[in-house]
């Protein structure tokens, strides 16, 4: 299989590497960069556990060939906030008990971030739509929606 050069900025770090054409963005993150926060749940772009932000848009990284993202900027859950300095969305997830097993959480957080980056004041329907590609089997989504609303309020508060 042919290898090609991939240059990718992930959470502010530059990756520059020869990779095989068939490699998915998710594999680069998990296997090459050991950023295992992004998860694989279905492999067909249905569950959203692998959601990352690529050039400002939430994408299923299991459905993106890594080379097609060449030159791109990727944000993963590891770049969202550190444990001593959580991003407002992460803090809101904690305060609203918006997680259980935690497997969908990274993807859910990234979908929420992409939404709030684009629309700081989303309606409940817009929140639900933005995370409708992220399956969660534990929480029934109620506290997740509450957390995203809460995070939106906090971010507005900070700006104001």
């Amino acid at each position, binding site marked *: 299989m042919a290898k090609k050069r991939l240059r990718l900025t992930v959470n502010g770090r530059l990756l520059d590497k020869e990779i095989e054409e068939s490699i998915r963005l998710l594999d680069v993150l*998990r296997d090459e960069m*050991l*950023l*295992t*926060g*992004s*998860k*694989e*749940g*279905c*492999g*067909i772009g*249905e*569950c959203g*556990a692998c959601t990352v932000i690529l050039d400002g848009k939430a994408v299923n990284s299991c459905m993106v060939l890594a080379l097609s993202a060449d030159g791109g900027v990727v944000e*993963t*859950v*590891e770049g*969202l*906030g*550190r*444990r001593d300095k*959580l991003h407002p969305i*992460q803090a809101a*997830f*904690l*305060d*609203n*008990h918006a*997680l*259980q*097993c*935690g*497997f*969908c*959480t*990274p993807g859910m*957080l990234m979908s929420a971030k992409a939404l709030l980056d684009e629309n700081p004041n989303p309606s409940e329907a817009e*929140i*639900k*739509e933005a*995370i*409708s*590609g*992220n*399956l*969660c*089997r*534990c*929480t*029934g*989504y*109620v*506290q*997740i*929606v509450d957390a995203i609303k809460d995070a939106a309020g906090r971010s507005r508060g900070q700006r104001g």
Partner: protein
Amino acid sequence: MADKIHRIDAVEKVTGQTKFAADLHLPGQLTGRVLRCHQTHARIRSIDTSKACKVPGVVSIMLAGDLPAHTSWSTYPILSGEHVRYQGDAVALIAAESEQAAESALAKIKVEYEQLPSVLSIEEALQENAPVLHEGRTDNRVANSHWPVRQGNVAAGFAQSEVILEREYRTSHIEHAYIEPEAVLVTTDWDDSLIVFGSTQNPFNTRRAVAAAAGYPLSKVRVVQQAVGGSFGGKEESMGLLAGRAAILCLQTGRPVKMLYSREESIIESSKRHPFRLRYKVGAKRDGRIMALQAELVDEGGAYNFQAQFMNWRASVHAAGAYRIPNVKVDVYAVHTNRIFGGAMRGYSSPQIIFAQESLMDELAAELGMEPLALRQVNFLHENDTTITGQVLTAAVNAEKVTLRALELADYVRKRAEYQEQSSEASVERGIGFATSFRGCGLGAEAPDATGAIVSVQSDGSIIVRSSLTDMGQGLQTAHALLAAKELGVSPERIVCKSVDTTAVPEGGMTVASRGTFAGGKPLILAAGQIRETLFRVASRRLDCSPAELAAEDDWIFVIGKPERKLSFDEVVATAFWSGYPLSASGWFQPDPVEWDHAAGQGEAFPSYSYGCVVADVEVNKITGMATVRNLVSVHDVGQVIHLGAAAGQVYGGIAMGMGMALMEEVTFRQGLVSNPNFDKYLVPTAMDIPEVVCEFIESKDNSGAAGAKSLGEAALEAVAAAVANALAAAGFRSRVLPVLSESLLREVNGRR
């Protein structure tokens, strides 16, 4: 009720640092893969691995004959050599340097099969001349799965009845759909024992499977539970098989082996909620008093089964619902088929039973011309009533209380009246309905509710808690930390809860039956209590009082009534440690023995019961057939709530899963083979399916659980599908089969035109 306190695993989970089994890597690890038969029922004529062995990167290929010890664990084949009974049966294992090499070798193994007649439904399994699927059996009934209940005299009860109704209900195979597929990494320790890191709900059972496969004693298998990405009863049989296979490959190759299931493999080989055929006959007086109930409840166990034996007992106990019925005859049994096996899934038979039995209550009410609530109020169990298993309920019985509260919160009476006035010309039909349930807490007479825990206070005052039970996302570690903190009078931030390592805690049974807090909290409180006594002894010398005069709160130990005479928890711990006192204690909860009369199904089934009621407000679009739940109210008596946010999370999660069961979820088959093995075709609720939800807890006292807690995880789910079905019926669409898909609703609408 702690609500401000975060889950103790939350920071790791929101920062992506939590390590699930698939996130682990060891140097030199190989990839393990399974070749499945994709047959419903066949003999294996031959297996040719010659071409596969030559694929570069293949390290080992194993067949049933190559296994070091047994080819099966319990009734489940680790590898099949002669006979396959469903599509997921494994016939070969591969260990390879890469995923691609394993994949390519899989495709090059040639297996010849001789097809045998298949059994693909409950009806086919029960036919007189059906092929018998398991050697040594005379028919397809699952061994030990029959549980009867006999109370009073049903013939006499029906003779006294003025209205008799007979109904049959059906439910479907349902997938757990935890978002994390099964994963395991196996390596060897310096003493040649095995170490298994895995996404397992029950590490001690996984250990049993690995020991069977490897021919090792239990002491030489160490299973370490990684964070589990959801389980709901499901990471059990499939995890035992996966871990057993990886262990064999690890021993064979001398290298660490990692095995991950794809979503398709997970759906094909993991257990499903048992589909049931539920036949009920009920007799009542005109005033609503139920005089007799007879039920034949048959579940499809699939190719192999070690759960129906237990699950059907629970089904028998709850078969008549939360009602007082003098004459009862119940028979529950399971059958083998050549489809995927049934297993534990959140609710453990109750969601299926409650769907049928609460639908039946509504149908009986309609037949009697009574309101659904009025019929239930005539028959609800109350304190000092006797259940169908002959148990006199002495603690608070809150079936009626939760129902009235839920109906009030749902504005049921007004909405029901309003919806009955709907114009038949409107494009939607609305309906409101409910279901009430009770649930025996913990294992009850099914198995001993025994379990253990170890609490160790460190010399700096930080604390390690180890339970024999597992957290798989439900928040057990948070609940345990809160219980231990309360017992020791310290802040929960001091506490670290470790996941189960089978070499570090005693085998304390399975984390099932919603007993993680209910039973699992007890040994923890005992162990923490022992340490508190030690600390009080040490503190009493320095405070010049007797230990009985002391209390512990907010990280201080002080004289009761004289809080100024106090020592900090840290100070007392340091003194105790440097004086050689034991600061580690192990606790064990041993339940009282229970007697069960198997032939009559009589006995004290459970020490406590949770009560719940769910009200659903639905709308059916007559143009698309689409059913939408608009509002849902869920009210539960779960004794004392330990953490409100976590408890509410259980209820919300149960609602989503129950709505899936009611309206969307069904594993479908084409000639016995699963035809929807991924989330593009097996649909589960998304955020957009979730209605306006109200959840409320009613607290009650005198419960047998740890800190007064009763079971919640399964109670939160069990009545949801039944409530949605009753709401659809109120809208004019009574379905006796779940799920109620829009196709069938549309057919119903068109049929009326």
